[in-house]
């Protein structure tokens, strides 16, 4: 079972206390966007084998949305961070790079 620390209330919550929200940092194209961008926003997902940035909600806790970085192959959690950001914090990226030298890095 996954254990994620909610960056807002500091609780180390297990997976049953949280709701997964899918891939994070997606550009939300709206009215006026071309078909490609809109399709990308709605359906295209990176689905990586390895480092994945994703959204979670502390549903049975403080109720807030936050972000997490996790490995989809090993389920290792690299860290969690605020929901109020468009990209992962530099410190977290550096930490992941140290652990996974082959990782291509964060791609928007």
């Amino acid at each position, binding site marked *: *079972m*996954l254990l994620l620390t909610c960056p807002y209330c500091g609780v180390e919550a297990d*997976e*049953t206390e949280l*709701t*997964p929200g*899918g*891939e994070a940092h997606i550009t939300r194209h709206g009215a006026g966007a071309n*078909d*490609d961008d*809109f*399709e*990308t926003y*709605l*359906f*295209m*997902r*990176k*689905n*990586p*084998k390895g480092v*994945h940035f*994703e959204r979670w909600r502390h549903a049975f806790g403080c109720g807030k949305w936050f972000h997490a970085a*996790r490995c*989809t*192959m*090993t*389920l290792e959690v690299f860290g969690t961070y605020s929901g109020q950001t468009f990209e992962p914090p530099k410190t977290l990226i550096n930490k992941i790079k140290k652990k996974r030298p082959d990782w291509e890095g964060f791609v928007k």
Partner: protein
Amino acid sequence: MKRYSAFAIAREAFRHHAGWERAWRSPEPKSEYDVIIVGAGGHGLATAYYLGKNFGITNVAVIEKGWLGGGNTGRNTTIIRSNYLQDPSAAIYEKARSLYETMSQDLNYNVMFSPRGVMMLAQTQAEIRGYQRTAHANNLQGVTTEFITPERVKELCPIIELGGPRYPVLGALWQPRGGTARHDAVAWGYARACSDMGMDIIQQCEVTGIDQSRGKVTGVQTTKGAIKTKKLAIIVAGNSGDLAKMGGFRLPVESISLQALVSEPIKPCMDVVIMANTVHGYMSQSDKGEMVIGGGTDGYNNFTQRGSYHHLEETVRALIETFPMVSRLKMLRHWGGIIDITGDRSPIISKTPLGNCFINCGWGTGGFKAIPGSGWAMAELVAGGEPRELASAFGLERYQEGRFIDESVAAGVAH
């Protein structure tokens, strides 16, 4: 290939069973093929088989990074049904179901297809209306289903508890010609038939790159060297994203783990397949006597191929209400398979932006039942270069065009 028959068994009995041969060859790859299929699961092998049988294309290699049928083909709960709401889904699943009926004779391999009937319980008012609608749609589509009363449910499945405190059984969608089959045998039977047609099934060979020139496929790089091909079919379920990346295109697919479990074997107690979508569990009894139970998916992307205990608990907790006897069973094994989920919960059988490269993926939680139909449609696509009727609605372009095959209500939960 020596045919399997009662006579063959008698003949072998007289010579200490020394005359059985390997069911399929394990050759080294040739330098070039007409068609390379990546993925020797049910869908890949079925595609190869129908390419040979329906189109006479036999210079084919099926490449598998693990072992044949070792992915989701060997990890599902073996349910076969075609009671879908949308026309394109009903058509392809019904094609598959009908092919299952004659598969053992067709392949000369006993796939143990058992049309024991599949029942989807209605446990809320919304489900009653939903399944009545599906029954009407199925009648128009030529798929035999009916909506049955709780009394009939009890008659068909005496171990069920109709009056559950939370979710009483209010009726069911009943497909009498649905059922189960031996999942491994489906892969093995196709593999044997393909090998007999001269196709090469190459296991333990991982594709590491896709060669292309001027927008068209020319071959693949593998752990057993480069192999040239005129056409490439990618049929790798949860790994589709990886192969698409090698081909230089994207897919609207996410991979997650879906799990199942089996109990200790017990005497026959249930001769139908029952699915309960509201509480999210489904159960049938295997020929060995184990209760085969399907559970939930993880809510997040992963490639771990293992189960998680809280999902097991949820599934079994829900089943105990409807089948109280389950509470006395010991569970023996649980496992997970990596399924590829698309945006509209329907599969993709499509051309790709890369010329002569075709993809079949996105079967999500319900691929096993579709194997022969999917292989049939994919063979049509690969052989002719354009999808025919069965596959025409399942193109990749539908996500951009907003032309979804929305089965998420009818089937997005339990398959």
